[in-house]
């Protein structure tokens, strides 16, 4: 199993629902609590696993705005796992989820240096690294209704721009969507093989302009009435 997320850049409107859902779930989840610093003061910041960055492609007036959620890619060759000296950072063989064992982490930040995607953040209060767990504390919870055994970010996305599933299974919805839409990984040249895939914006359907030889009449006086009952 190669569990991961598929994020649709064609429908992400940058609303941050997924970022806050993640923050909310994980506050009391297996990695919680997630510290917030200067919560009511100057320069408030905190530990988040999912952040939405926003880019513009091209120049005005043809520019396109792209809203870009990013969280751990659960890479196949996760270098953050290789570099960890204590073994706190690891990838599960059964489903590929990359995790941090908070009882082993010594807070050296090396894994964050190894991660191209900024997936890991240090929780200064605990001194350990934290990151997306693919909601491992939701997806296997049989006490939840089946449809809710998904990451919080996927469940909440109002434009359904996030999907979750097994990218090793060619028949899964995620695999089929990636194939159909040309999903791609970020910074593939680094070779870490991120599992999360991003769907590029769709090509707009070209709508033809109405061209049925309609006469260009500009004198209303010439217009003829049809006989139509109310």
């Amino acid at each position, binding site marked *: 199993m190669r569990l991961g997320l598929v994020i649709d850049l064609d429908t992400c409107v940058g609303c941050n629902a997924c970022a806050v859902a993640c923050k909310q779930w994980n506050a009391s989840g297996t990695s919680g609590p997630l510290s917030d610093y200067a919560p*009511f003061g100057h320069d408030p910041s905190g530990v*988040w696993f999912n952040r939405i960055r926003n880019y513009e492609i091209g*120049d005005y007036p043809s520019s396109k705005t792209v*809203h870009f959620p990013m969280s751990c890619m659960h890479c196949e060759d996760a270098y953050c796992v290789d570099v960890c000296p204590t*073994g706190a950072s690891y990838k599960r063989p059964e489903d590929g989820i990359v995790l941090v064992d908070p009882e082993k982490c010594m807070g050296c930040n090396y894994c964050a240096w190894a991660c191209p995607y900024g997936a890991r953040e240090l929780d200064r209060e605990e001194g350990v690294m934290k990151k997306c767990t693919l909601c491992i504390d939701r997806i296997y919870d049989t006490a939840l209704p089946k449809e809710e055994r998904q990451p*919080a970010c996927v469940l909440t996305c109002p434009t359904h721009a996030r999907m979750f599933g097994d990218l090793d299974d060619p028949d899964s919805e995620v695999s089929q969507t990636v194939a159909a839409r040309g999903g791609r990984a970020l910074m593939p040249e680094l070779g870490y093989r991120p599992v999360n895939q991003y769907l590029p914006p769709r090509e707009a359907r070209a709508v033809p302009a109405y061209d049925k030889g309609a006469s260009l009449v500009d004198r209303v006086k010439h217009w003829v009435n049809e006989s139509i009952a109310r």
Partner: protein
Amino acid sequence: MTSSALPDFEDHATQEVKYTTCYMCACRCGIKVTLEGGKIRFIQGNPRHPVNRGVLCAKGNAGIMKQTSRAKLRKPLMRKPGSERGDGEFVEISWDEALDMLTERLANIRKTDPKRLAYFTGRDQMQALTGLWAQQFGTLNWAAHGGFCSVNVAAAGLYSIGHSFWEFGDPDWDRTRYFLLWGVAEDHASNPIKLGIDKLKRHGGKFVAINPVRTGYQAVADEWVPIRPGTDALLALSMVHVLLARKLFDGEYLIRYTNATHLVVDTPGASGDGLLLRNIKGHPLVWDVERKDFADGTLPEVRPALFGEYSAPDGRPTKTVMTVLAERYLHEEYAPERAERICGIPAATIERLALEMAHVAFEEPIEIECAWTDWAGRSHDRFLGRPVSMHAMRGVSAHSNGFQTTRAIHLLQVLLGTIDVPGGHRAKPPFPRHIPPPVKPAKDVVPGEPLKAPPLGFPTAPEDLVIDDQGRPLRIDKAYSWEAPLAAHGMMHMVITNAVKGDPYSIDTLLIFMANMAWNSSMNTAKVRDLLKQKDESGEYKLPFLVVVDAFHSEMVGFADLVLPDTTYLERHDCISLLDRPISEPDAICDSIRSPVLEPDRDVRPWQEVMIELAARLGFPAFVNEDGSAKYEGYRDFIVRFQKAPGIGFLAGWRGEDGKAHLRGDPNPNQWERYVENQCFYEYRLPEHMRFYRFANRDYLDFAQDAGFNASADPIVMELYSEYLQRFRLAGQGLYDGPQPEDPAEKQRLATYFDPLPFYYKPLEMQQINEQVYDFHAITQRPPFMYHSWDSQNVWLRQIVAQNFLYMNRKRAQQMGLADDDWVWVESRNGKVRVQLKLMEGVEEHTVWTWNAIGRQPGASALEPDANEATEGFILNHIISELLPTDDEHEFSNSDPVTGQAAWYDLKVRIRKARPREKGSWPKFSVMKPLPGQEAAAKVLRYHTHAPVKLIRSLKDIFTRN
């Protein structure tokens, strides 16, 4: 999926799940709340709820931080005796003291001059109750916030097509193939639009976004049309020009369902000019092309002429509405070439968009096979749909030309035959309603008595205005006066200015519920704050008593004389009613409640309960028995037992003694419990044959009458040409047979702007300032993750944005020598503010914008004085004047002349770089003092409801596996 050896992360046995309705904004999504140890573990969307279907936005997901906010009010407060208003010095008092004080004051006002109570409510959703309360009190001076929100959009729809955007109607997301979004950032509806955009894209529809800025919804649009603010009417009407020029309109639809065939009397300069030709019964006449004679335009089987000029029996020349319309829009004034110059959009694009819509409408119609009967009893076997839809909101509404602009958009929709059809824009029950809804605003005030009509309504003639015999406004906000005749939602943004200036008169008490009028909800904020503190010669405040009701601290709270603390949305009972601002879907009639998931942990009371108690204390007839005792035990009892008309109550579900009646029925004492059992909402799905063409659908019209939505089952005829507007125009021209204004400026406004057909005009303020000097449009957008000034107090949400920037087009900025992060002065004719600049591509060259309501007064919402919102954040409100420039003494409000809608986005500014040492936002305001009992702010927050159940990796795994 299974995985061995995972611990039990959640102790479900100790958790409790409750359902209620979110209130982080006005979308009213259904939420499922998991509680643990008396705290909130998780909030998620309710999968079964008709509004959001399981999804939830960032605000909804941040409910925990709202519930645990440091800004929560804890106890009733009174301004400390001897302190000045606005100093923010309070003493805590008991509820008994507070209510006794208020009751005494209100009772006195009620028995002498009820108008001296002005009760205005902000983003509340309880207007049916607050409006009823005001009506029972007997004051005209009530409205909610629509006057500064989106009354232009609402009124335009209700005076044109019988429904409108947002709560009143929706695009047919499942079937629409071409969607135009006009002037919408994160605006209502929030989650439904997001769900809809996804559906639209999945089935290959094209999405065009018309907006000066490209973020959010615009980001995912297939085509972005960067329009200059305030010019949307010209864009819409030039598309009408293109369609008319090629005869691309749905003639059948126009003939059957609109007043396009009615005959307009064409006698300029004479009374009656521009009104419709009517028979003795008052029915509009049409020209029957078969019989070649005039006929009653309300009869079926008449075959009316769409075009032509006909001499009336009495000799007066007439033209069909369609002829008048076509003549106007085919004129070069509405040609795409002119629109290009003014809107900033290439003529070729305008033409192409119009023709693309025409292609989808006429070459790709859809049909739903379904037998239905029309208003005349004729059977049809299918619903024909032209799958082009639109949505418009604040970007169109918040201009002084927003009413006519929205009417222009509706015209475009109607010409294409897309109203309430499959794939088009569909009404949501209780809409469509007759045009306009048959409610007239109250005029007469009798001390000690309720008003005979609701405070708000829909005028159809000058006789309906709320003015005295001399034509002076009777309402404190001057709504329904010659200044703003169709002010259907009131004009809350003028109350403080008018009350303090004593124009039209002074009042005694201003009661503000949930509105931050001392900050982001006022124009000219710095001045309004001063007005609140103004005293007369005897040293008394010109606004004698200010009561503020809210759940949270805000700038407004700092100015109160009396503060009544409300509960949060998770702590209260509430109802989202069909009588109010409903949550229906096009296919289903829906309403909902809020049911508390938590008990308040402080001395607060839900405002609804307090209102009902005050109503009883003050002896409102609807709230007391004959012996004067309270009729209702509290809010829930009121909601369940109150009937507006026989069988019609606040909640439509599970009515009747046995709870089996739908929509209409006797009160069910267990109704509230039934809602709670059903996850706090009620959904009544319309049968398929009643889902489309409802303005002409007999079964639906009968049903709507039975359910109490409409007073009659008559078909609803869409008005391309509004005779109601023409009546006001005639009054302005001195040709009306009834009340007319005296003041030349008022006459000119009516004569110009009450055009019975939509038209484009430059926004009022822009007509009077030097646009060479003030060369930028300055607008705001609501961020998707915050709602007005409600969320800077939210620890999670404010991390996303704690400082707002002013965004400018990069090329334009570079030409001006400006760079990212420069501090600049933004100056209007009313004042200046200092802000920090950011450059971007996706903004039209003549526009600058910022996120709404991020800047705050230091200490507001219990933020620390050095919070970025106070030191670097800003609001534009200080430089927006609430009054238009004037040469004489008559000051008109900076609003739409038809509806009085606050014209926020008419603002024009100039931008200059600040000097090197000029950094930080300006103007600066004093630091708000903490309220009594306020604890010090934590430096670190670590919210959780249970200790984390950690996942441990074995040492063996560490040593053996790579």
